[in-house]
């Protein structure tokens, strides 16, 4: 109570009635915290809006190379924008209370007893937020589930420890261990596994689907940008899980045709499912994990 240096002493204020001094203070605190909350939220939203267009360029998000990527990024922006006020709601009000009502400030404590209104308002707001996010997410869910129409390219993907194999049934079962796709043509991936669970993930396309032994799972996307991307395994699948990745080349339709016809003859079908010698990182896989060899070369 003798913390006069921190806050002005309350006793020498005879003119004001002492009962009044406590009550308006409470409204003040709420208003002050609300202003801080609004300012923090506004600043964070502005910063976010300034940063958001550059995140791909700065490497925070993978390149957006398919029709799925933009959807995902839009959802992510909306969710982030809605998270900012909620985050600051908790942090600002909690932090404000921790500082302003610290007993070192000499306050004798107050009563902020539950009104009926506040919980009801809280429940309503949280339900509204959740419902909005749900309905919003649901509209995109339909697109995730939707199959691509319009002359789709079918690719059969087979995961095995620790390789990806691709075959193109529409092109005489052309085989490859790297994925090559024509730009702007819908692709349907039929995914299988010959041993344990893997997960077929192309971060740049925004698609991921588990490869489950004995089952065929399906996912689709339309590549929209020519470039080189990567397939990663996203389910721990044993010893060399970290190295189970392979490049994705998105090329023009003409280049794809040339490439895929070249794949039909030279690779015999049996070699794709050849058993990998256990305990030895397949040289082929090691070479294809280009970042691995380059990092070894670095040091």
């Amino acid at each position, binding site marked *: 109570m003798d913390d006069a240096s921190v806050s002005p002493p309350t006793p020498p204020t005879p003119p004001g009635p002492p009962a009044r001094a406590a009550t308006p203070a409470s409204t003040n605190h709420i208003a002050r915290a609300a202003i801080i909350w609004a300012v923090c939220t506004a600043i964070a939203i502005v910063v976010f809006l300034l940063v958001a267009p550059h995140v791909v360029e700065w490497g925070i998000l993978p390149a957006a190379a398919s029709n799925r990527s933009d959807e995902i990024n839009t959802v992510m922006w909306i969710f982030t924008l809605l998270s900012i006020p909620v985050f600051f709601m908790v942090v600002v009000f909690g932090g404000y209370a921790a500082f302003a009502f610290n007993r070192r400030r000499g306050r004798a404590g107050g009563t902020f007893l539950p009104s009926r209104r506040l*919980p009801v308002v809280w429940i309503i707001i949280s339900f509204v937020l959740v419902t909005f996010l749900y309905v919003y997410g649901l509209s995109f869910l339909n697109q995730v589930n939707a199959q691509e129409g319009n002359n789709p390219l079918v690719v059969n993907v087979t995961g095995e420890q620790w390789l990806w194999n691709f075959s193109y049934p529409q092109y005489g079962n052309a085989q490859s261990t790297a994925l090559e796709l024509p730009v702007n043509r819908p692709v349907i991936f039929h995914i299988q596994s010959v041993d344990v669970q893997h997960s077929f993930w192309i971060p740049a396309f925004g698609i991921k689907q588990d490869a489950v032994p004995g089952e065929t*799972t399906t996912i689709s996307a339309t590549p929209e940008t020519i470039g080189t991307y990567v397939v990663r395994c996203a389910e721990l699948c044993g010893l060399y899980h970290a190295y189970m990745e392979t490049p994705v080349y998105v090329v023009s339709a003409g280049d794809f045709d040339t490439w895929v016809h070249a794949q039909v003859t030279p690779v015999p079908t049996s070699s794709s499912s050849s058993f990998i010698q256990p305990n030895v990182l397949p040289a082929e896989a090691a070479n294809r994990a280009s970042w691995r060899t380059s990092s070894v070369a670095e040091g």
Partner: protein
Amino acid sequence: MRKLFPSYLTGAILAIIGYIAGSQFVYHRIGSDNQPAGPNFTEQGMVVGFALFFIGWLIGIGALKYPFTWLLALKDPDHEEEMRLAGKDAGIIRYFKFTTDHKVVGIQYLVLVLIMLGFGGLGALLIRSELMRPGALLFPTETYNTIVTMHGMLMILATITFFIGPFGNFIVPIMIGARDMAFPRLNALSFAILVPAIVIFLSIPFWGYGQANGYGGGVQTGWTVYGPIATQTGMGMTALATAVILAGFSSILGAVNVITTIITMRAPGMRWTRMPMTVWGIFGAALLAALGTSSFAVDLLLILLDRIYKTSFFAASTGGNAVGAGGGNAWLSQNLFWFFGHPEVYLIVLPAFGIVCDVVAVFSRKPIFSYKMGVLGIMGVCVVSFLVWQHHEFVSGWAPELRFWYMATTELISVPTGFVFLVLLGTLWRGRIWMTLPMMFALSFLWNFVIGGLSGVFLSDVPLDVQLHGGMFVTAHFHYTIVGGALMCFFAAVAYWFPKMTGRMLDEKLGWIAFWGIQIGFNVAFLSMFIAGLQGMPRRVADYDPAFATANFITSIFAFLLIASVALYFYNIVISWVAGKKAVANPWGALSLEWQTPTPVPLENFEEIPVVTSAPFQYTQETVEAEAAAEPAAGQAAG
């Protein structure tokens, strides 16, 4: 010397004899023709050995004496014998034997949990060291995957225990005004089962290295132990399955005991609406443990059957590379696992909700704001948590037509969680806040858990989950909830109840340094891990694309700070326990029952059972003002 019989020493001796007898009998007499046999052991031998290890331990510590004397109707133990079993006048040795006093069991749990967290933290240190730079730095992938698995599983075992074990046993009975748990011997048994489980668990790295079956020794599966890779991986899996089944038994027995205690043993006047929130949180967690754990135990049993008897629950027929005989399905494994796995994370965090509400109420000197909302929040999360598990399988291909429903339940669960935040903010508002160490940890929960919760909303949305699932974003998210939420509350709870449990104060200054180290290290490390996840880095990889190098380097450096700070906090616990300032009976001025007992709490807690007349933490304007006037210096000295 007589005091050591029976004790953990005799238990350990009989356990080792049991293991050797069991495994060698199977190896020499039954043998095996389809197992890659190591030096003198097979997997069949391991299981039988572990079983006898466990039984030998129970016989050695004397846990089976009373059930058998009762079965054989020799005699019922009289009150004096019960008191002796509860460790009356036994001195320090009572902590090293089968003792039924709930306070002894609570301390035993606390020490074991700290040891488990220590080993788990060591795993984190090794993981972050390996991931500091791209490229293979320290371990072969075989070792790395084993460390990842053990870190995950051990931390889960520690965190599902670290509220129900120490505080559910030590604090809850006193809080509700009981003399002991409902089933004291069952209570001691649940701890006694956990000890051999952890010993077996820590043996995992020693099985199957060197004589690899082609898929690595140790355990290569991650803590999710999905079939069929759990069938394919090294012999460590058998040790893991046995250990976790035992730990699951311990968890279920402990939970049943806690539930019964809370339902039946409350003091007169301790109505459901007068229980401190801690009791509600632990009650909800115990319900989840009792109902959910068995699903995981079944999963592990099927894995053991697949491994040892060559059944094929999880392996499908896929031709030459198939793991087992075929006919099984891997989705079964995912469902069995996550039906336990998701309630399990709420099991970890529900007591944290309760404890943080109580701590905030005590150090704000206010009654809990909107108590019923808090209870509704905890019990709401408890119920809904059983309806969300499929969100772990959004990309598994299993039942995609159900995704809209699980997306709804998953987003719905954030509503009752939000209630808890309302309770916390309302309790803090216009309180008289005393910034002690427990309070600081409780406040850090607000910051950390809101980040964990909001990132969870991202993952609940199917289109986003398709991109983020299986990546570092998920790892960062659940570390925010479990470390940032639950572990911070554990540290708060340790600091808060330390005076009651040990009779000494936890050193504030060391705790303060550790607190800031923990907060800074944790937040920078895991915010940076969110970035790695957004960039597209998969989880549980031993090596990664140099594109993720910056984010991982920052994560590693700050993870080291986090680990060092936690180590400092542990050091603080040890040093304060041994040589801390003596504590008075109620150093915090708390109003709940456990603080009204003397320190150390006598056997049977209360001379006479108290009668409760009000809801918890009924601080009033008058009492708080009187307290403020009475101790003018305290605010400056300790605040």
